[in-house]
């Protein structure tokens, strides 16, 4: 589709990948480094088309390993920078991500998740939840992870992710899936220039006589020092908990809580409708930040509901965090599809009904 030149607030029909890229340009990123991979190559392609006409740098790296290390360098030099890839490419970035987290460099990493493990399939998946939230790389670190569930959020969360990354000097990730990247929806793009640049006194931009040299490193060979670094990180992660975001739908009077993020959450919204039509009081909690995780919100809900049903496009990953949050207060069930398959609202609803049945049997 021909590129539209409107930069105003008009609604547009865009692919998720393109909306994300356009939002990043409007968020004034200085550089994008990336490597093609389905289903997110449109991000790189969009940048290569637009950057020369607008502002900022785009570079197709020789690999994802190179791309993430270019991000390290560019972020360390004070740039507002991002990369994107999909599952296998994100795996290749794990060392670099661990370095970036340790050196505390703000940047945006986008994973348009496809079905794994291995080369797998290019279809949408949420199989990288653990990798994104627990740290697929080595050592104790966390990314700030945002999970969009619409093309609109693909665009909006670019701004949120960059804002949080810069606020906390921490890498942020947008964890989407192939469908969100490829589909077109209506989107109203954020305003260009609405995300002011922040000062980065720690960046390596050349040392004037007036200050000590800046060093970007993740090496602290004495374990005593490395522990101090880690304690600092842990302290930061504690602060980041205050940034938790989630959406509640029909939970006020709910007996049953669905929990799902991203595309699965959209499906669950339909399940809520199906349930409510049948008089079943089902609600939905959608974590928007996967890290920080809405643990206490879920803990409170666990007090009120008969059970929770977690729906994911994987073999059961976020369900662990939900169980940890529920802490035994209510049963937590799981329904998932894998390897690029998307559960239908109907099958989730059927699952829900079978749990209700089982439960009432047990109660008898």
């Amino acid at each position, binding site marked *: 589709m021909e590129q539209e030149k409107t930069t105003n607030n008009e609604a547009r029909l865009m692919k998720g990948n393109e909306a994300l890229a356009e939002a990043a340009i409007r968020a004034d990123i200085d550089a994008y480094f990336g490597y093609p991979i389905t289903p997110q190559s449109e991000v790189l392609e969009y940048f290569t088309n637009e950057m020369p006409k607008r502002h900022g740098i785009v570079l197709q790296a020789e690999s994802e390993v*190179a791309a993430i*290390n270019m991000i390290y360098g560019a972020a360390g030099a004070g740039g507002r920078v991002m990369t994107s890839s999909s599952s296998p490419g994100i795996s290749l970035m794990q060392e670099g991500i661990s370095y970036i987290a340790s050196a505390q460099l703000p940047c945006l990493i986008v994973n348009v998740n496809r079905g794994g493990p291995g080369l797998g399939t290019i279809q949408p998946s949420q199989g990288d939840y653990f990798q994104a939230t627990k740290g697929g790389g080595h050592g104790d670190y966390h990314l700030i992870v945002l999970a969009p569930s619409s093309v609109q959020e693909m665009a909006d969360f670019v701004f949120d992710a960059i804002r949080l990354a810069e606020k906390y000097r921490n890498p942020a990730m947008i964890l989407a899936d192939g469908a969100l990247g490829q589909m077109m929806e209506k989107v109203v793009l954020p305003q260009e220039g609405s995300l002011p640049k922040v000062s980065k006194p720690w960046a390596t*931009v*050349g*040392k004037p006589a007036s200050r000590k*040299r800046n060093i970007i490193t993740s090496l602290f060979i004495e374990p005593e020092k490395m522990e101090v670094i880690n304690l600092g990180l842990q302290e930061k992660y504690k602060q980041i908990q205050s940034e938790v975001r989630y959406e509640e739908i029909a939970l006020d009077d709910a007996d049953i809580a669905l929990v799902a993020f991203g595309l699965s959450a959209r499906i669950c919204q339909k399940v809520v409708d199906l349930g409510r039509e049948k008089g079943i009081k089902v609600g939905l909690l959608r974590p928007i930040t996967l890290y920080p995780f809405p643990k206490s919100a879920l803990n409170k809900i666990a007090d009120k509901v008969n059970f929770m049903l977690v729906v994911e496009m994987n073999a059961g990953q976020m369900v662990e965090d939900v169980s940890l949050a529920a802490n035994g207060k209510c049963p937590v069930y799981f329904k998932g599809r894998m390897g690029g398959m998307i559960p239908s609202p109907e099958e989730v609803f059927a699952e829900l009904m079978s749990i209700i049945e089982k439960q009432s049997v047990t109660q008898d």
Partner: protein
Amino acid sequence: MDVPTTLNGYELIYKKPSTLTEKPFHYCPGCGHSVVHRLLMEVVEEMGIQEQTVGVAPVGCSVFAYDYMDIDMQEAAHGRATAVATGIKRILPDKFVFSYQGDGDLAAIGTAETIHAVNRGENILMIFINNAIYGMTGGQMAPTTLLNQVTSTSPYGRNKEAMGYPIKITELLAQLPGAYYVSRHAVYTVNAVRKLKKAIEKSFAYQKLNRGTCFIEVVSNCPSGWKMTPVESNKWLEANMFPQYPLGDIKIPKD
């Protein structure tokens, strides 16, 4: 450390450059790494570009280069110094950017990043310390280890059938159109040190003119890894390394 400018009427004619920090080098006695560090910083001092220079340290013995050079620096992941330098240079195109890497870093794990940075003609200076061994991790075989050379992972000598050949990465890189100036040096004699310093000066001058990648290999020693005294190591260097890695310019600007 402030040194007096005169001593019993004698004039100060050589002192540590101000662009080096106070911290003593952690390198083994006689190791060439610190000579190259010093030369880089002498050039930065003399060209007055301390404010405009950003360096990238590798993973290798020179991982702590930033402890010594009094400039803004980044420490890169093993092998990725040129990717990191690319990131920096693209953000700061008007600054002087150099990367500094050992042979394991540059020519083994970092081969792809090295080749593609040069192929893009990134406007940076790449300093390549070739000591034919992995110093930091305790003397393992490097891609540049000579045939039959004994290391902790080639205890019976490097054997070409199983382990391949010492790689002349510098000659390969010189073939890439992005390489503007490619030169091989050493620091085993006063003269060699002086030549290397000239090469570094030139490279920064070319960088200012956006001419493409400047690449300087320093054939260096690793007394610890080679299990020799520093003086022996320099002799071994001459006798064994130079035949495989002859000193001199490999590619010089046509203009």
